[in-house]
């Protein structure tokens, strides 16, 4: 209880800090929303020209893209402290030591150390795309679908958050080539915004067996949009998202703990 309460107080402190720069906050929010919105606009233009991609209509792709935008931006907000480009400075400048000197769970402190509100701009933009998807498609909203939608979103947040934790942990050893993790986070985010059929088989395999992202957005979308599975996976495939999300989180937290132990024996 105390821990949860403290988490919210730390977040509140971050929010108050950012409210000191009110103008910059609103302009950042708008720029973020617009920049990401542009990307979707190019997709729209693509559909103007071709009508559909691999049997997916604009509304259906908007469903994929909207989900990804919302969940990735929410993750980017909640896991701001684990943004590895930023976290590397915690280690380098001794901020991480300061956290270790406080009698509070270290993961919670990192989560509470940063909360970049302007990411909400992207959440808004993602919601808009998702709204367009809802208008253009005709989803049959059963209770199961209504309940499963937030579960999928949370699972996606956890999966991407795991990659942030993973990247931050690496900075205990090296900050060189940390951008390589971007291929998974930002690359994965972009890749999952489109139907998986458009990718070559080897690529699909990587995102099925090595990092099972295929179950995070694509398969759930098949379930919501009632589309047939062209890849022939068992019918449980659309429901693996929470399993993958929680699994990735547990693995990344293990690695994080291992990294902290390493840090305790080497320092920065």
């Amino acid at each position, binding site marked *: 209880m105390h821990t949860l309460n403290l988490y919210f107080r730390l977040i509140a*402190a971050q929010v108050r800090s950012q409210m000191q720069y009110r103008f910059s906050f609103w302009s950042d929010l708008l720029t973020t929303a617009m920049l990401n919105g542009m990307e979707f606009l190019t997709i729209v233009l693509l559909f103007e020209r071709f009508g559909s991609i691999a049997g997916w209509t604009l509304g259906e792709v908007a469903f994929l893209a909207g989900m990804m935008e919302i969940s990735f931006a929410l993750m980017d907000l909640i896991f701001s402290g684990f943004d590895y480009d930023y976290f590397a400075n915690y280690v380098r400048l001794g*901020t991480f030591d300061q956290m270790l*000197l406080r009698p509070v769970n270290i993961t919670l402190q990192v989560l509470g150390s940063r909360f970049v509100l302007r990411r909400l701009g992207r959440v808004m933009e993602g919601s808009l795309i998702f709204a367009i998807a809802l208008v253009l498609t005709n989803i049959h909203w059963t209770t199961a679908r209504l309940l499963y939608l937030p579960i999928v979103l949370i699972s996606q947040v956890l999966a991407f958050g795991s990659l942030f934790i993973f990247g931050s942990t690496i900075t205990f050893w090296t900050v060189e080539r940390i951008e390589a993790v971007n291929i998974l986070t930002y690359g994965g985010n972009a890749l999952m915004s489109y139907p998986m059929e458009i990718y070559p088989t080897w690529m699909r395999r990587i995102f099925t067996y090595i990092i099972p992202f295929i179950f995070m957005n694509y398969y759930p979308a098949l379930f919501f949009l009632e589309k047939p599975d062209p890849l022939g996976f068992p019918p449980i495939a659309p429901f693996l998202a929470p399993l993958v999300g929680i699994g990735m989180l547990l693995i990344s937290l293990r690695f994080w703990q291992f990294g902290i132990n390493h840090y305790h024996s080497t320092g920065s």
Partner: protein
Amino acid sequence: MPPIIDVKGLHKDFKVMQRRAGMFGAVQNLFMPRFRTIHAVDGVSFTLQEGELVGYLGPNGAGKSTTVKVLTGLLVPTSGEVLSGGLIPWKARNKYVAQIGAVFGQRTTLWWDLPVLDSLELMQAIYKIQPERFRRNLADFVDLLEMQSFLNTPVRSLSLGQRMRADLCAALLHEPRLVFLDEPTIGLDVVAKERIRQFILHINRQRGATVLLTTHDLSDVERLCERVMIIDHGRLLYDGGLSALQERFGGAWTLAVDFSEEYANIDLPGLPPPLREGRRVIYTFDHNHQSAPDLIAALLANYKIADLEVRRPALENTIRRIYEEKLL
């Protein structure tokens, strides 16, 4: 009474990768990295009794901060035993850090964009300080550190001295039994330094906190500490009283005399020939063998003296001599 900090045979080694130059070197670095072991702390043992205030001195890279990092639970030693406040610092981190307070002069623990008071209130939540106790300590500390004028100022707008005071306050509001201060007066002006020293004395004398003070500023040590530990190359060179250190290694004392008249012969028996600059003459003598009053008496008996001054060796020089001449 058992000591509050007990360090036995502390070793901390670091492996540092040695990079080779050139294209071929870069390839070698990748496939056959060569490591060199650095013994940052190389067999250090000491104890601190509850309520002591000890100065911990040493040049950069001597092993000071590594020792402090082990004592604050940030680093796990390579070997050796540490029992601090009844706990092993690097085990049960949460429980241990709740009873210590640490300030690293170069860094801040405060929330940069928020008023000082907000940071202090967050500390209350972090350390679960009871409201009544928090109010009392806050009032005392704000008074002692003269923080009233900037309590509502965002941390980013504070001067270095103000920020340091706020950091000290934040780190000690929960009244830790053990306090580790690393360069708490670095870069501060004389007035700010003095205020901080007063505060350190307060938490040590009035509140009974045990303090380990790491510093380069020897005036801190002279003002605050009766006992000092000196470390160099990972080993403790000295652990004992400050006055005993001065007596053993302080080097020569000097006696500066202004004569009222010109004298041809001003040598004193048993002393080397003095340094003359007109009527001002400087004698050097060994404090352990000659007493200043005897010398002064001899001078007054034979000469007319306008003024004189006995100078103790500066601690700074003593420490420098120890490092440079390897006196220990």
